[in-house]
Structures are given as structure tokens and as C-alpha cells.
């Protein structure tokens, strides 16, 4: 049941020999993309979230053969030449990482959400929360994650004000 498939992983074109019985999660981890975590294995926790053609999905419930001809993005690929992506940096800034197991999956969900909604007027917290409902985090209580996403959506101009507000609140 072996097949050859061609796809892009983090912009790099690759040809992979995969077993049709394998999930995308298994194949990515086998090839060293270990940011992709297996949590529940049944589409409930979102730890294995990757983007396929920029759409977030659970790689544990996705057959590897389905990515033939498609582009995959994982958290590794978001860091370019040692520089964190905007979303990754925002997670760091707002302390949205604790044990870290859910983080790569959440980063990919947030990345897709920010790319889709950047520049739009007023995205509500409820919308951000609903868009992240497929990712479980047992440490943070989600608040810091929502703040990270808000920081990205606010863009550079508003960020100073935003940080000031936060500092004032922290004090």
C-alpha cells in the first residue's frame, strides 16, 4: 500500500513515499516535523493542527495521501532565518506558552485566523475564541492566547497603545 506523493512542506517541494494507511500526522513526525503533536488522535484536541493550502485541519484525521499536490505548513516553517513569525512572537510576548504541548497546533490555528482577518474592522473576542475552539490548552486558561491574537490583529500602529494599556493593567 505504498504510494509516492509530491507536496510542499513549509515551502519546500518534496516527494514522499507514504503508506496509504498513514495519517498526515505520522508522516510529518517521521520526517522530523515534530512540532506536530499527537494528543487525542481523534480530532478533539487540535495539538496536531497543520495548514493544508492555508486551511487549518487536524493532521491525525487526515490521510497522508490527501496532501498530494498540496502545500503544508507546520510551526517549524513559520520561523524564518531564526526570526519568529508575528504570531509566534505575540505568543511569546503575552506569555501564551506554558507546558508548550498545544502551542504548535495553536500557533497554526492563530496564523490561519490572523491571515484571514488582518485588516478587517473589529474582530470580537468571541470570534477569536470560536476560531480557537478546536484547540485544547490545559495550562493557560486561553486568555493569554486570545491576547496574542488580538496583538497580531491590532497591527504595528496600535501595538504601542496596546502594550501601554497592558502595562498599565499589569501595574
Amino acid at each position: 500500500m505504498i504510494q509516492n506523493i509530491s507536496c510542499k512542506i513549509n515551502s519546500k517541494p518534496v516527494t514522499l513515499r507514504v503508506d496509504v494507511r498513514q495519517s498526515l500526522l505520522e508522516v510529518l513526525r517521521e520526517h522530523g516535523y515534530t512540532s506536530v503533536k499527537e494528543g487525542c488522535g481523534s480530532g478533539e484536541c487540535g495539538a496536531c493542527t497543520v495548514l493544508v493550502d492555508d486551511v487549518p485541519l487536524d493532521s491525525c484525521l487526515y490521510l497522508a495521501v490527501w496532501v498530494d499536490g498540496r502545500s503544508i505548513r507546520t510551526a517549524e516553517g513559520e520561523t524564518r532565518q531564526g526570526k519568529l513569525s508575528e504570531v509566534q512572537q505575540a505568543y511569546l510576548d503575552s506569555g501564551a506558552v506554558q507546558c508548550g504541548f498545544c502551542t504548535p497546533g495553536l500557533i497554526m490555528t492563530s496564523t490561519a485566523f490572523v491571515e484571514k482577518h488582518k485588516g478587517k474592522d473589529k474582530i470580537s473576542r468571541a470570534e477569536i475564541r470560536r476560531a480557537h475552539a478546536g484547540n485544547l490548552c490545559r495550562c493557560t486558561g486561553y486568555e493569554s492566547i486570545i491576547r496574542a491574537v488580538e496583538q497580531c490583529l491590532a497591527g504595528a500602529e496600535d501595538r504601542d497603545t496596546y502594550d501601554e494599556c497592558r502595562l498599565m493593567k499589569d501595574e
Partner: protein
Amino acid sequence: MFDLDSYHKASTVEEAIALLAQNPQAIPIAGGTDVLVRLHQGHPDYRHLVDIHDVAELKSISMEPDGSIVIGSGVTFTDLMEARIITTHIPVLAEGASWVGGPQVRNMATVGGNISNGAPSADSAAPLLVLNAAVVLKGPQGTRQMPLHEFYQGPGRVDLQQAEIMTALRIAPDDYQCWFASYYKYAMRDAMDIATIGCAAACKLEGNRVSELRLAYTVAGPTPLRCWKTEEKARGAVADQALLQIVGTSVLNDLRPRESWRSPKAFREQIIKTLAERVLQKTLNQGGVSIS
């Protein structure tokens, strides 16, 4: 690795039917969010797969010249939430789709799978039932079509013959034009949850009279169900407080809720009654009728 005994990929509906006909044990896999979960649990009934994930002809949403809306069975819930035809003409279906699982699941799971697996809790089922949707089935004997409520036969059982697959859902113009409709899912959590009770209502109005009412529930019986007796009682009634009460009292006669770990029977009955009134009221409000 999933424990599969055979796997064949189809690129057209014809090919899928031929592959299913060759192997009576085989089942189709589209979005994978049910089948792969079952396989992950080691379920033996899903070991022969015909893969219809990339069958392009199942993925379109279109409107025919007569106004019929045709939804391919391979359309995902995210597609339903975002497609203009759906959000403009039958927003109740977009609403139902938006309560399925979480975002990742909605990006993968298909409406055809949601209906074909016969789940009593299918979020798309109640909106589709009040839209009087028909299912289009294709098999070795050709194409046939039937109302969705006839397609359901029992828990997990639908009227799919050997080697047949659902190719589309079809909604006739008379079933959505001039209708108002809404859906409410009652669940313990706002996402990643299965409904305790789901309720959809649709009505047509003549002044302050309900000329036609359709009411459908999920998780209130062995399959998603229409409330035929209650609908009959409401026909032609003035939209007032008394009607809400009649509907709320009558609706349990149409349904067979059961006890499960998710909810006791008595609680389901309470929710059924409450939702009948609230969802009907919300639907009437859409039509400009408010009941105080």
C-alpha cells in the same frame, strides 16, 4: 497507522460506484472525521475503504435555473458557512453548519457524511429537514432521489443500497423562497460538543397567520425527526402566545427522546418543549411577527 485491509481511491463518482460494487465490505471515506475516528478506535467495520475525498464533482454548490439549490455531498461545513448561495438563500443551513465540532473539523467534515452516517445528532439534519431537502443517490442501477426524512431508517441506518453513494442534497425553490427559518443547538459546551437537543423551525406567514410550519429535531429520537402532528396543528393558526403553547405541548407526541449519559430523558423533554417555543418565536420574529 490505520488498520486497513483495502484502500482504493476514486476520482469520479462512476469510479467510486464501481469500486464499491466490487467489494461489498467497502465503505466510502470523504472528510474522514467519522471513519478515521472509528479506525483509530480499532473498529473492524471500516477496514475496506473507497476514497472519495478528492472527487471534484461532489464539491460544488450551485443554483439551477428553476432556483433549486444543489449541494454536493462532499461540501465541507466551512464551505456551507461561507458559500454565498447558502448564506443568502438558506442561512439556516449555514447556522447549523457553524455548530459542528470545531474549526478544523468543519474544514474537513462533509455534509454528505453527516447525513449518510445516520447519526441522530447530525447538526446539518434539522435545518435540512425543515428545508424539505431531497437526497440524490447514485448507484449501479442509476440515480434516484427521495426526501431526507425517508432516507433515515434508524439509528446509524439510512436507505443506501449496495454500492450507492449520496451525491447531492437538493432544495426546491418552493421550500425556501418566502420561508423564514432558524436553528438552535442546545449542548453542554459552545463547541466541540454533540447536541443534547437540536431544533430547527421554518414557517411561511400570511399576515399574522402561520400558513405553514415545519419543525425538526435532532437527538430527540432514533433519527433526526420532523414533527408532523404539530406542524398540522399549527397550519393556519394565528401567531400568538396560544400557538407557542400548543406547539410546545404537542411536540413531544412527535418525538421519542431517550436517556443517555449525555442527558436524562426528562431533561431532554424539557429542552424539547422550551426550544419549540423559542425557536418558533425566533423564526416568527424574522418574519416580522413578534409575540409578547
